[in-house]
């Protein structure tokens, strides 16, 4: 079995397994873990333990949480310490980047076992009470120590990184942290061109203050403890100046930015002045991205947008640029610096909505199908109505998903949805979509055409700020806006829509979506092939399938990978359809059909790139199966007339005859019969019958005899060919000859007879030589052409492989690019210099545009106290409906609490001082 066959069988086996089970390719535990905590690819759990945590900060006087000792599980990975509570994974979770750990101490413990106190740069101390065997706890502590040391070498990165976080600036400004940050970090365009919406209306300042308090007590950026308050604050809408940072924290792009601090600038500088299709497409759309926002009426905004989109296209050539990305990035850039937006876009395309912006947009198509199906199951009335009236739901919903609602509703509202989207992921898009339909259900049921349907929803989006119940006698109800109602509907009523359900649906429709894409791509590609005389449409379709079946790296459905065929694949392709290819291993000896195939390949590879496209292939095949004898001979001639001089030289003639010998082998060896032999056989049979008209039964034909005859004929054909060719070959023209001779200073009067004298055959001579032999003439007019079975259907097993493999790759490719990430990491490892963003200085110009009234730059929260009414309002009604119900602590939790109190080993500041003296207990100190 050849290598390829075994590979193929293996692939089929795997794919069948995968598809039979109809299950998603199982992610490993580590992969699932990374997914859940939005950790970068490649993190693995190095050690884990059951634990309880106690969180303390020097600023927690007005702490609002009352669950001091959540129980859960703690994990150590290469760069993170992760804790999730057992309660609901929402009560107290943290993902602390190890770079932000300043100190780890072991607590002296009496009976309770083993405890570590971790102090972070944000001045919170987390005490982990490890539960389990003492030796296991020791192991955990040991692992933690080792990885902390490993991280130490990157401490530089961390220092630089902190200066890019608005949260750090905010605290430093209020003398809460010891960081020296004098100027606000690079941020979004909004800092300069004003943020959309009215900051007063959205209670921006109060929100800012709440976050400020949260940062002091629960930490921030790389060392934040997520408590219910965190989620609450995200859900009531993020304050303008923190929005970018919280987005990247929620989705995890912050970690990517931390890991690769030079990549963005590098991508830009390395690709400066380069051109690509993506670049052209981006240029077209730069002025067409949120054009009504003042930042994009200025070269500053346009330039940032250009840089982020182009950098992304260079990093992700398989995606390049997709319309809608311009809108998304333009939106991100209002709140984020270029680098923040760049990494967030990467994460978006890789993980959150994979395939949305790919070349075939398979993710978009798939999720539209999923959305339809969710409408069908959760809003059956609407679904039936839409079906009955042939209303194209996707016209309405596709832009919602693709532009994350940014083009559908007023920006202020879209950003609120995006706040939640970065926190909760793609399911948010579905929940909001369903809620929109549900809220407008009554109206929508009255429509019977797309037009009205669309205008109802348009109108709805334009009135989101209006009361949802304008006629209610209860002023409380009257105050609820349509937008609030939408959020409540989305996240309360459609909270059943979870990731698992979406994944299940995606899996269900994957096949049909991929099938559609495949057939569309095929149709388009075949249509764009040149018109050919000798190959019909049906055959083209088979060639297309076979081409991609053999071009392994290509993946039609994902629109990524190479769509070119190399020689190896070409050989397999030809082997599948030609009778004359010799597969035996000649171990390098003599001429084989490989030489002829190589000649074909080089001839068809017009650009000499070592690859042929589908178009090159069909043009070549079209010549190979030429029906006209004269053209067929001249096509063959061309193969050897490499320099296109209209002649084949001595070497070439020898090559032709050897190749002919090879490719005529099946006939020359008597394996296949040509038309002459066939004719002779039927003639013989006929004669036999004539002689013996009454004979019934089989006529015995001496196959061997015909075989021998044919072998004779081919051998004589071959020798006649070479003889004639040299007989009629002409010497190279006199003048050239003389020149050569003069230069060589050698004189020979008898050039033509000298075996070393250059001779050549031209096309007419070549034709004559071929036509002089009956066998070879037939070979060029029929035998050869008939031995290439272009329309041989692709082995059904094979065909399915192609389609299925594409799908298989699709499953694997979703959001996982481990190999590339590793490569990129290696690239970056060397250089650790951060290029400071120069934009900052040039941005100060248009400050005047900002109204004083809405100017909220004074972040001096040290002196400002929050308006209590505002706080209630913020965290009251809206937040309440949006927040998962928080149950009071479970029994186990209460017991634990008591336990802690009894043992009295809650670390507090006085205690810490005492412990500092016990030197051998310090596990790690980085301060």
């Amino acid at each position, binding site marked *: 079995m050849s290598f390829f066959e075994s590979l193929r069988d293996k692939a089929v086996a795997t794919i069948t397994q995968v598809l039979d089970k109809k299950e998603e390719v199982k992610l490993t535990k580590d992969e699932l873990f990374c997914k859940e905590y939005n950790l970068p690819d490649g993190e693995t759990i190095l050690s884990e333990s059951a634990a309880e945590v106690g969180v303390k900060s020097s600023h927690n006087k007005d702490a609002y949480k009352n669950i001091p000792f959540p129980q859960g599980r703690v994990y150590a990975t290469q760069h993170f310490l992760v804790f999730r509570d057992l309660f609901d994974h929402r009560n107290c979770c943290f993902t602390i980047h190890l770079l932000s750990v300043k100190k780890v101490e072991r607590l002296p413990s009496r009976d309770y076992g083993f405890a570590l106190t971790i102090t972070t740069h944000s001045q919170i101390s987390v005490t982990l009470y490890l539960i389990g065997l003492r030796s296991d706890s020791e192991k955990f502590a040991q692992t933690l120590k080792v990885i902390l040391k490993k991280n130490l070498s990157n401490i530089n990165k961390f220092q630089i990184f902190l200066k890019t976080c608005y949260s750090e600036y905010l605290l430093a400004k209020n003398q809460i942290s010891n960081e020296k940050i004098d100027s606000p970090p690079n941020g979004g365009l909004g800092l300069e061109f004003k943020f959309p919406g009215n900051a007063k209306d959205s209670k921006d300042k109060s929100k800012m203050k709440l976050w400020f308090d949260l940062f002091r007590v629960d930490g921030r950026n790389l060392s934040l403890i997520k408590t219910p308050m965190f989620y609450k604050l995200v859900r009531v809408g993020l304050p303008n100046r923190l929005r970018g940072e919280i987005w990247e924290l929620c989705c995890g792009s912050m970690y990517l930015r931390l890991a690769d601090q030079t990549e963005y600038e590098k991508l830009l500088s390395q690709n400066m002045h380069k051109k690509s299709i993506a670049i052209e497409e981006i240029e077209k759309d730069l002025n067409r991205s949120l*054009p009504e926002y003042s930042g994009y009426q200025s070269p500053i905004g346009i330039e940032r947008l250009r840089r982020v989109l182009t950098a992304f296209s260079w990093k992700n050539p398989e995606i390049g640029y997709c319309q*809608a990305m311009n*809108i998304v990035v333009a939106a991100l850039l209002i709140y984020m610096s270029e680098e923040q937006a760049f990494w967030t876009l990467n994460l978006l395309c890789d993980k959150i909505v994979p395939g949305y912006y790919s070349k075939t947009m398979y993710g978009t198509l798939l999720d539209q199908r999923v959305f339809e199906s969710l409408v069908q199951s959760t809003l059956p009335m609407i679904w039936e109505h839409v079906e009955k009236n042939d209303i*194209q739901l996707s016209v309405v919903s596709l832009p919602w998903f693709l532009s994350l609602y940014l083009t559908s509703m007023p920006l202020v509202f879209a950003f609120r949805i995006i706040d939640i989207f970065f926190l909760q992921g793609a399911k948010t898009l579905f929940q909001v979509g369903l809620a929109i339909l549900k809220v407008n259900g009554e109206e929508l049921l009255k429509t019977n055409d797309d037009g009205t349907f669309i205008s109802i929803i348009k109108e709805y989006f334009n009135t989101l700020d209006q009361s949802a119940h304008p006629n209610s006698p209860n002023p409380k109800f009257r105050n609820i806006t349509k937008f609030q109602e939408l959020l409540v509907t989305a996240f309360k009523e459609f909270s059943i829509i979870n990731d698992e359900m979406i994944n299940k649906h995606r899996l269900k429709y994957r096949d049909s979506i991929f099938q559609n894409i495949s057939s569309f791509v095929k*149709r388009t590609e075949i249509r764009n092939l040149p018109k050919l005389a000798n190959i019909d449409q049906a055959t083209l379709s088979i060639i297309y399938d076979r081409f991609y079946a053999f071009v392994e790296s290509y993946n039609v459905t994902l629109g990524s990978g190479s769509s070119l065929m190399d020689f190896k694949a070409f050989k397999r392709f030809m082997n599948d359809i030609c009778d004359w290819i010799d597969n035996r291993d000649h171990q390098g000896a003599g001429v084989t059909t490989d030489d002829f195939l190589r000649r074909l390949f080089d001839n068809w590879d017009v650009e000499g790139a070592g690859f042929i496209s589908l178009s090159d292939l069909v043009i070549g095949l079209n010549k190979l199966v030429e029906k006209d004898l004269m053209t067929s001979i001249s096509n063959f001639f061309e193969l050897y007339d490499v320099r296109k001089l209209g002649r084949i030289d001595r070497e070439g003639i020898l090559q032709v005859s050897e190749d002919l010998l090879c490719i005529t082998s099946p006939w020359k060896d008597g394996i296949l019969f040509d038309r002459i032999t066939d004719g002779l056989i039927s003639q013989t049979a006929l004669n036999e019958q004539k002689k013996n008209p009454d004979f019934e039964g089989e006529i015995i034909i001496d196959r061997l005899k015909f075989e021998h005859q044919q072998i004779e004929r081919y051998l004589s054909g071959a020798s006649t060919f070479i003889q004639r060719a040299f007989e009629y070959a002409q010497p190279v023209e006199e003048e050239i000859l003389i020149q050569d001779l003069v230069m060589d200073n050698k004189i020979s009067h008898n050039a033509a007879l000298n075996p070393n004298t250059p001779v050549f055959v031209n096309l007419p001579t070549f034709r004559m030589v071929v036509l002089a032999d009956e066998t070879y003439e037939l070979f060029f007019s029929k035998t050869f052409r008939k031995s290439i079975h272009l329309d041989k259907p692709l082995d059904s097993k094979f065909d399915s492989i192609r389609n299925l493999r594409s799908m298989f790759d699709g499953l694997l490719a979703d959001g996982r690019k481990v190999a590339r990430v590793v490569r990129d990491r290696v690239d970056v490892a060397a250089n650790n210099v951060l290029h400071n963003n120069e934009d900052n200085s040039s941005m100060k110009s248009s400050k005047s545009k900002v109204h004083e009234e809405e100017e909220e730059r004074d972040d001096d929260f040290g002196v400002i106290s929050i308006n209590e009414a505002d706080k209630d309002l913020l965290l009251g009604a809206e937040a309440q409906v949006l927040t998962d119900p928080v149950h009071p602590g479970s029994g186990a939790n209460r017991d634990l609490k008591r336990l802690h109190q009894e043992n009295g080993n809650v670390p507090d500041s006085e205690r810490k001082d005492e412990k500092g003296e016990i030197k051998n207990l310090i596990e790690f100190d980085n301060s």
Partner: protein
Amino acid sequence: MSFPNPATSVKLVLLGEAAVGKSSLVLRFVSNDFQENKEPTIGAAFLTQKCTIGERTIKYEIWDTAGQERFALLAPMYYRNAQAALVVYDITKPASFIKARHWVKELHEQASKDITIALVGNKFDLVEDDEEDSLRKVSVEEGQNLAEEEGLLFFETSAKTSYNVNEVFIGIGSKIPDSSANQPEAIRENNQGRIDLTSNNASGGSSGSGDCAC
């Protein structure tokens, strides 16, 4: 004939490369407006506009599609059952003309057999005052030839100055046979009341924009 003109619904789809001005043509036709920096269409947009040609009123249901190559996959969803199509290119962008050719081919292969197609070279304003024709990259003849080969209506337009825009829709309307209209709606109300007025109408896009009810 005493019947009031029943509005004939015509499903019309716009196809063509990104940024050639499809949405701008629609905006001009529907709202007589123009935006300098129009955001790209995501997926597709749907608009309607009535248009009176002679005694006949046509209600255009316009499907404006996204132009970027990768959105082409979505196009079949929008041109299915379309009775009319505008294939738009930008006369200053040769690549957009090549793309237009592809779209014509695709429509002939995939769309309804009796679809009426108009080839539209947009952004005429850019070459209007351009003496040396330095901006124009696709000649009128090239456009005309393609239209002739493929049996299309042909217009050069400017969504910006509104030059020839209404004419496109009137031209299409006059060419749509009355019998094929209303097909996609499945609801064939007014069927008995409809009178074939096609013969009464001037063919081609020569009627003035005043005829258009927009």
